[in-house]
């Protein structure tokens, strides 16, 4: 199929349609609404299920019900809506039914704004809902990657009977780029042996997240952790740029990673030996790759569109072997390549301490950027 000019939200929606999504439940929220609108036209035309729910709370529970039938299902939202879905997500995780969610992140906390942000890293990667569970989290940095990861999300969710997130931001959702859509896959005709579809000629089944005996719930938690271990072993994904001889390595995902790549190229043009690691799976996180980098590179710069949520995972991987610096923009602000370039050039010149808190150092430097007056 040829490349066409596609808007991120619509590209992800159409990718899901072609991946064989059978039901979509959602609620309007900027900056993801085009995704819902696209589904409202496409799915009924194809004889599939689209329903605009009365709230994100209802949408996630409709999704939960539909997922229990073994159908390929998804929802999408943006940060405040994802917050509302956390209850349902915990139930879905506890019931071990596969679902796909797309989060087109926006500035927060609270109502915040509708500008691009990466502020949902913690609420998605590190939980949000109650109890122990680990979703798969994929972070695209282009419209093409958003398409590819949406398709992958369905396959991974079903392979592991788990939650798979695609977390984009307002940038990826709203911008248009040339990209290629996958061919249309046929809809599934066979259903897994756990699916609740009516007890026709078989014993009745039930799906639930309730394990009233703590020892049974403990066993369930252990099973979930075993699945998570398999995911960690097999599904780590990332992209490396110019790492072979890199003395400085920038780490960033999604839009921040993409902007960082421009800065890295500019720095390379100035003779700085800098590379980029762009995690594609934020969960499972590329801990091993970062550990390897910490044995080769001399300094690290983490760039995010939040106050350093992934930074803590990077530090966990680096374990203080090399100095780490941080640069973030928050609340819907997007860094310019030049801001990251000047950080790279500064780090190239300065001695960065191994100890101390990179977030605190960033806050001191950052006060000037936002004209902060005490």
């Amino acid at each position, binding site marked *: 199929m040829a490349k066409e000019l596609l808007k991120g939200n619509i590209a992800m929606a159409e990718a899901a349609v072609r991946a064989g999504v059978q039901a979509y439940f959602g609620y309007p929220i900027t900056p993801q609404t085009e995704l819902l609108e696209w589904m409202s036209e496409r799915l009924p035309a194809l004889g599939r299920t689209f*329903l605009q729910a009365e709230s994100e709370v209802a949408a996630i529970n*409709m999704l939960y*019900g539909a997922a229990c039938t073994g159908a390929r299902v998804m929802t999408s939202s943006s940060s405040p809506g994802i917050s509302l879905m956390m209850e349902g997500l915990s139930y879905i995780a506890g019931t071990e039914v596969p679902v796909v969610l797309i989060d087109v992140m926006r500035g927060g906390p609270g109502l915040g704004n509708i500008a691009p942000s990466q502020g949902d890293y913690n609420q998605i990667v590190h939980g949000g809902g109650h109890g122990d569970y680990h979703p798969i989290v994929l972070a695209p940095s282009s419209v093409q990657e958003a398409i590819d990861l949406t398709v992958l999300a369905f396959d991974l969710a079903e392979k592991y009977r788990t939650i798979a997130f695609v977390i984009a931001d307002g940038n990826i959702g709203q911008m248009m780029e040339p990209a290629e859509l996958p061919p249309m896959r046929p809809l599934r005709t066979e259903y897994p042996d756990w699916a609740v579809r*009516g007890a026709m000629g078989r014993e009745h089944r*039930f799906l639930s997240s309730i394990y009233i005996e703590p020892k049974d719930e403990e066993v369930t938690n252990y099973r979930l952790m075993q699945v998570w271990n398999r995911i960690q072993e097999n599904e780590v994904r990332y992209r490396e740029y110019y790492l072979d001889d890199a003395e400085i390595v920038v780490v960033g995902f999604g839009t921040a990673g993409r902007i960082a790549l421009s800065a890295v190229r500019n720095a390379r043009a100035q003779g700085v030996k800098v590379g980029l690691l762009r995690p594609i799976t934020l969960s499972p996180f590329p801990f091993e790759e970062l550990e390897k980098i910490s044995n080769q590179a001399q300094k690290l710069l983490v760039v995010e569109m939040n106050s350093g949520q992934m930074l803590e995972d990077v530090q966990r991987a680096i374990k203080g072997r090399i100095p780490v610096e941080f640069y973030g923009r928050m609340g819907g602000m997007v860094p310019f390549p030049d801001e990251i370039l000047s950080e790279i050039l500064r780090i190239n010149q300065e001695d960065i301490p191994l100890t101390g808190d990179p977030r605190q150092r960033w806050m001191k430097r950052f006060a000037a950027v936002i004209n902060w007056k005490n």
Partner: protein
Amino acid sequence: MVTTTAPVQVVYQRPKSLSDTPTHYCPGCTHGIAHRLIAEVMDEMGIRERAIGVAPVGCSVFAYNYFTCDFVEAAHGRAPAMATGIKRVLPDRVVFTYQGDGDMASIGMSEIVHAAGRGENITVIFINNAIYGMTGGQMAPTTLPGQQTTSSPHGRDVETMGFPMKMAELLSQLDGAGYVVRRSLHDPKNIRMAKKAIRLAFETQVHGLGFSMVELLSTCNTNWGVSVLEAMQWLKDHMLPMYPIGDYKVSPALENIKV
């Protein structure tokens, strides 16, 4: 002594849709009656194999153990949303929720109103016993004015705690509702009327006539702190005046359905 030679005839047995599992319900609780009525209706309509139940959070959280049809277990109050998701994907299945008053009329008010408003082709069995049972007798949205509970120890004061929610009346106002009635489980006559209503509610769904709900006035002798018989009398004396038995919305198309 007179002996009979008439052949043995089974006149009463466990419905096939009801599992052979002892329930966890308190002795005297009307949940058992409601379960049995649903199972009898499923048997009579021959829908067990295509029925999917959605259990709530509350005393009937384990309802899935007591039926032999497929079941899922919803989050508190979200059963109508979960049922919607199932029904939209499998429109030829018979999907029903079983919900208490805390689940449906308090935390799940949004989900039930919108399911009814959409005319979602699901059936809701609503157990109204004017109290939270599972958590130990707190005030529910359906608790009567003046009724003492563990969270309204001096009686429900409508000035500060508001008025009871009349769910059948409320949902019957919505255009999507095909069949919305209130029945009671306090005596045999009313139990028979309740069964007929449950049948009509499932018929409403099978015939695609929209949302159906049967509100069943029920007892909670344990948390009301009375004997089983006193509970039946209390329901009759206090709940019936507040929650009149009646047909609040009956789709005209149901007149042609004989049960």
